[in-house]
């Protein structure tokens, strides 16, 4: 089934077409990789899907509903979460609180609940902590649960950022270069996490520059250049596609392994 469907999406900034007539879909429980050279419009695409930018033309459908031009918080509430290219976490808050903050749109307590600390609020807070500890253990961050987020290592921070977005219980997760700046070991850990996110039933849209990683975990790929689709298909067909190789990997040096 098509979870996310993008139809002829176009976005211009001034005279530059960052996204041009782009159409594709993400199926339930698949990892779709987006590849393309720098400036090809990958992050812009994320910003369009999550409502940070409004598209000039085209449609974004999420599980059959038109979410084109919806506000970021609305898109998140409907079940699309994202991470950012540059690490974005709540500094000054512990890892645990960072995750609990991510549970905002899946919890209900209002002003009265907060002031009275009634049974429902206390139960919700208890559940928040339990689920957050679970999430930290899933991300191998249990040891640093009470450490302020800004004091974590950069790889830990990037895992925490994934955790914050996962805490919103998304059906679709957009990951913007999750392994950027990571060592081989840290990358392996991130890859294992992404694979398990898929196993748990969340579809993933992945921007990844490390081709080895991408080829390993993505079920399908779309390649974009200049905001429009260059090719779409299985890892093997993308790796063999002459236009993709020329645009992205360079004309002479092909190094997939």
């Amino acid at each position, binding site marked *: 089934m098509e979870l996310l469907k993008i139809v002829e999406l176009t976005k211009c900034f001034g005279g530059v077409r960052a996204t041009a007539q782009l159409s594709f879909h993400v199926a339930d429980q698949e990892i779709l990789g987006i590849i393309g050279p720098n400036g090809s419009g990958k992050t812009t695409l994320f910003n369009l899907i999550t409502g940070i930018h409004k598209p000039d033309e085209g449609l974004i459908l999420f599980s059959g509903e038109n979410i084109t031009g919806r506000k970021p918080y609305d898109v998140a509430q409907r079940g699309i979460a994202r991470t950012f290219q540059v690490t974005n*976490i*709540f500094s000054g808050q512990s890892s645990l609180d960072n995750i609990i903050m991510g549970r905002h749109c899946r919890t209900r*307590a209002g002003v009265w609940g*907060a*002031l009275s600390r009634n049974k429902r*609020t206390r139960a919700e807070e208890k559940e928040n902590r339990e689920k957050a500890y679970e999430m930290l253990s899933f991300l191998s961050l249990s040891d640093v649960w009470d450490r302020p987020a800004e004091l974590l290592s950069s790889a830990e921070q990037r895992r925490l950022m994934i955790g914050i*977005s996962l805490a919103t219980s998304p059906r679709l997760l957009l990951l913007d270069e999750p392994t950027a700046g990571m060592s081989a070991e840290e990358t392996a850990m991130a890859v294992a996490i992404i694979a398990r996110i898929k196993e748990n039933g969340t579809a993933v849209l992945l921007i990844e520059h490390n081709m080895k990683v991408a080829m390993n975990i993505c079920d399908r790929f779309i390649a974009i250049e200049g905001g429009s689709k260059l090719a779409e298909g299985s890892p093997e067909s993308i790796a063999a596609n002459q236009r993709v190789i020329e645009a992205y990997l360079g004309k002479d040096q092909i190094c997939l392994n």
Partner: protein
Amino acid sequence: MTDKTNSHALYLWLSLIGLIILLPWFLPGRYYLFLATMVGIYAIMVAGLNLIVGFTGLISIAHGAFFGIGAYTCAILQVRGILPYWPALAAGTLFTALIGALVGKAILRAKGPYLAIGTMALSILTALVLMNWQSLTGGASLGGIDGPGVLKIGSWHIDFYSGKTYYYLVYLFVVLSMTGVYRLIHSRIGRAFIAIRGQEELAEAIGVNAMRFKILSFTIGCLLAGLAGGLYAGFMGAIDPDIASVGMSFNLLVMTIVGGAGTLSGAFVGTVLLWLLPEALQASEEYKPLLFGIILLVIIIFMPKGIMGRVKELHPALNKWVK
């Protein structure tokens, strides 16, 4: 938090409340009781401003205006004989919150310096209206506010004309406000405020409707300013438009920042300091403002996060205590 720190925190709370109860019996004179009551009134208001500035990361140079709106609403209702003091206090508080919500909805679209200028303009406007709408506000001064008077519950008579009784009334509201703000910031609502303060883009990405929670924070902050205004009107018996001036708003902002914006205790520490420091300075009247200014400057330079913000950084263990 473990049970042990929980019980420690309880002892801390109990001893603070004990201190508040005992303080009037040890104060050397009526003037100090007046000061202590004023500190309480301001602390309620600054706790509200701290929610807006310290926890949600907004800027408001209009808090004095909301203090004024609360004070005038409560005073006018009572002086005109429309409502007795207690319902007038409630009406003033709720009316201020309502104005806060409406103004917030319009003004909170602006950010940073634009929000500062917008709220400052609001402060100027409010003071002008209070001064010039003489048929409603009495112009330069509005007197004859009776306050709560004597409350009769059965055979009990609580006389609020007594300084001590009013002190206890104010501090009852201080404790309630502080507890309310504490519970709020340690809840889903407060986490949304803090998320907006830190990373608005990320807050929206996890489903926080930033505009809605900014308005909520602003409204609750204004509610506390309105409450403080009503208590002030009942305490002083006469009010003037200066309480809604830009200068007042700036003072409140200084109390928040010097005490430590974003720490619950900071709001109180800042209020106490800014009330007591001028009293403690034993210099001649001429040099007082100069010394006062220098001390504030030194605090801000060496403690950019305010006094309680600095205390918090001294040792990780203090984090649990400094809220």
